[in-house]
């Protein structure tokens, strides 16, 4: 049994054609069948049936009643452990619920499990997790592909039909890139629209929760429920959240779409550029006006990001010291010894690398040259977008520089790996919203994504244009 959308499943539930328990049984069966893909870090049938008992009692007016949702294992959940994909949090049981997951629970959604991710969301292939690699459900037998990352488990869960929505977080592309690799919809909304409270911190000035789904309408339904103001996150925005799905408007007449010349990059396959070209043509046919724009500081986005994100990470991850929670090394002779051994045993290679870089760029004598410089360039990158959105309503770009790559592809060059985020990082630095939707395929039949960006809090226009483009493949 396969359900295509939230509204379809909700209607069946409202008409008593399916029960909450039957929904649970359906998805438990699917998840068990796809066990080999290693999508979930935590999956427990009993915990799902516990939720069924509670959900059965609530009113059908709850917009997400009985809707199966997978949760990236970076969101603290009170009834399920939370690992952040790290050994250092292997046995961590949060005593509180994150803001975003609480909002989803309040609307009656059913959490099917916690999904795999790159350790502390640091990676682009879901291959730095302590709990093993996740396999992209679109892989052919015997040649596993990466699902992208860091929210690869969540993207894969939607692609494999193990849920109707999955939470993700995006710091430099961790929702949009895996959405592109797995052929699903993924939105990173405006920085601040969802509270970060209860999300394991990576780089706080960039971290933003978002959602994966099978289609644009479902993403718009879920985002409305996840967003909202929260006093426990001082960067959380106090803005009115529109009813995105009710407002969906396919009419793009007169909308100005910016095509940034800096996103044509050497070494990117023709297929990526062809898909981009098709989407441009389609928007034009729908009445939109194409504007050729410039975002002159684009090429500096990645190096800026790889100073700021590790700097913030080195500070945020200082809390893992073996004292209050998480792994503690045995046989330490002194307190310092315990800190060093705990962190050495508990963190994986990519996390250590980023903590070391972050510590260096923040250290006395180097702060101005690296961290302060990067913050200034970040300002120029953000200003590029401010200027661009005076000329256009939306910006259209590819999402990722390639389709899903083989899981076992050698990843010994960190800079090469970082290039995965070349199209997604600029928007992260500017805090603006972005969506990736599947649009066309490469010669091997793998999905390619396109990205739509807009100014702060303009998710509605992003959904509208994505909704219109989605129709090209129905």
């Amino acid at each position, binding site marked *: 049994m396969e359900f295509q959308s939230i509204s379809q499943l909700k209607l069946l539930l409202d008409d008593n054609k399916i029960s909450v328990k039957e929904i649970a049984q359906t998805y438990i069966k699917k998840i068990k069948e796809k066990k080999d893909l290693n999508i979930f870090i935590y999956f427990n049938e009993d915990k799902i049936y516990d939720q069924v008992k509670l959900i059965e009692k609530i009113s059908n007016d709850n917009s997400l009643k009985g809707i199966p949702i997978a949760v990236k294992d970076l969101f603290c959940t009170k009834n399920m452990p939370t690992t952040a994909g790290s050994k250092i949090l292997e046995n961590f049981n949060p005593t509180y619920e994150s803001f975003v997951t609480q909002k989803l629970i309040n609307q009656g959604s059913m959490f099917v499990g916690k999904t795999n991710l790159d350790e502390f969301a640091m990676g682009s292939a879901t291959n730095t997790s302590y709990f093993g690699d996740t396999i992209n459900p679109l892989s052919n037998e015997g040649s596993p592909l990466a699902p992208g990352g860091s929210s690869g488990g969540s993207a894969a869960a939607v692609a494999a039909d193990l849920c109707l929505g999955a939470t993700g977080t995006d710091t430099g592309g961790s929702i949009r890139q895996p959405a592109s690799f797995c052929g699903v919809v993924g939105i990173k909304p405006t920085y601040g629209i969802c509270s970060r409270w209860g999300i394991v911190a990576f780089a706080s000035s960039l971290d933003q929760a978002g959602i994966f789904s099978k289609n644009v309408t479902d993403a718009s339904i879920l985002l409305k429920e996840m967003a909202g103001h929260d006093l426990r996150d001082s960067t959380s925005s106090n803005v009115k959240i529109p009813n995105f799905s009710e407002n969906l408007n396919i009419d793009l007449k007169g909308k100005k779409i910016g095509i940034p010349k800096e996103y044509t990059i050497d070494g990117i396959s023709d297929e990526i550029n062809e898909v981009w070209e098709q989407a441009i043509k389609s928007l034009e046919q729908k009445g939109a006006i194409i504007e050729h724009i410039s975002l002159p500081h684009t090429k500096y986005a990645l190096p800026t990001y790889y100073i700021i994100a590790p700097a913030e990470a080195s500070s945020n991850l200082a809390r893992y010291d073996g004292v209050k929670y998480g792994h503690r090394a045995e046989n330490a002779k002194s*307190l310092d010894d315990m800190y060093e051994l705990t962190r050495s045993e508990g963190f994986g290679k990519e996390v250590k690398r980023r903590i070391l870089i972050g510590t260096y760029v923040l250290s006395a004598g180097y702060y101005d040259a690296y961290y302060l410089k990067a*913050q200034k360039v970040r*300002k120029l990158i953000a200003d590029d977008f401010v200027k661009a959105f005076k000329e256009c309503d939306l910006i259209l770009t590819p999402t990722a520089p390639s389709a899903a790559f083989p899981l076992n592809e050698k990843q010994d060059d960190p800079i090469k790996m970082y290039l995965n985020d070349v199209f997604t990082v600029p928007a992260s630095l500017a805090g603006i919203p972005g969506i990736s939707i599947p649009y066309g395929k490469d010669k091997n039949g793998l999905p390619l994504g396109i990205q739509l960006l807009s100014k702060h809090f303009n998710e509605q226009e992003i959904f509208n244009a994505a909704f219109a483009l989605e129709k090209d493949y129905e």
Partner: protein
Amino acid sequence: MKLNTNTINKIAKLARIRLSEKEADEFLKDINSILDWVEQLNEVNTDNVEPLTNISSSALTKRRDENQDINSSDEILQNSPDKLEGYFAVPKVVE
């Protein structure tokens, strides 16, 4: 080369991460190549540019600084690897 073996070990000490000699060598190579790569930011003129520290487009909200009486010490200690009489326990610090 930006870093040498001494500096990588000093940073590792600051970050409280113990590295084996082999790890130190590997990280030294990786981090130097990353630092060389970010050098390109020096091409950008940032004279008179304010550093961007908060990307949120709305002003940071304030809340009243009020005392809340929450007794959650059991919850807080629940995940501790070692505790003793309502406190976190660590290896002996004072002889």
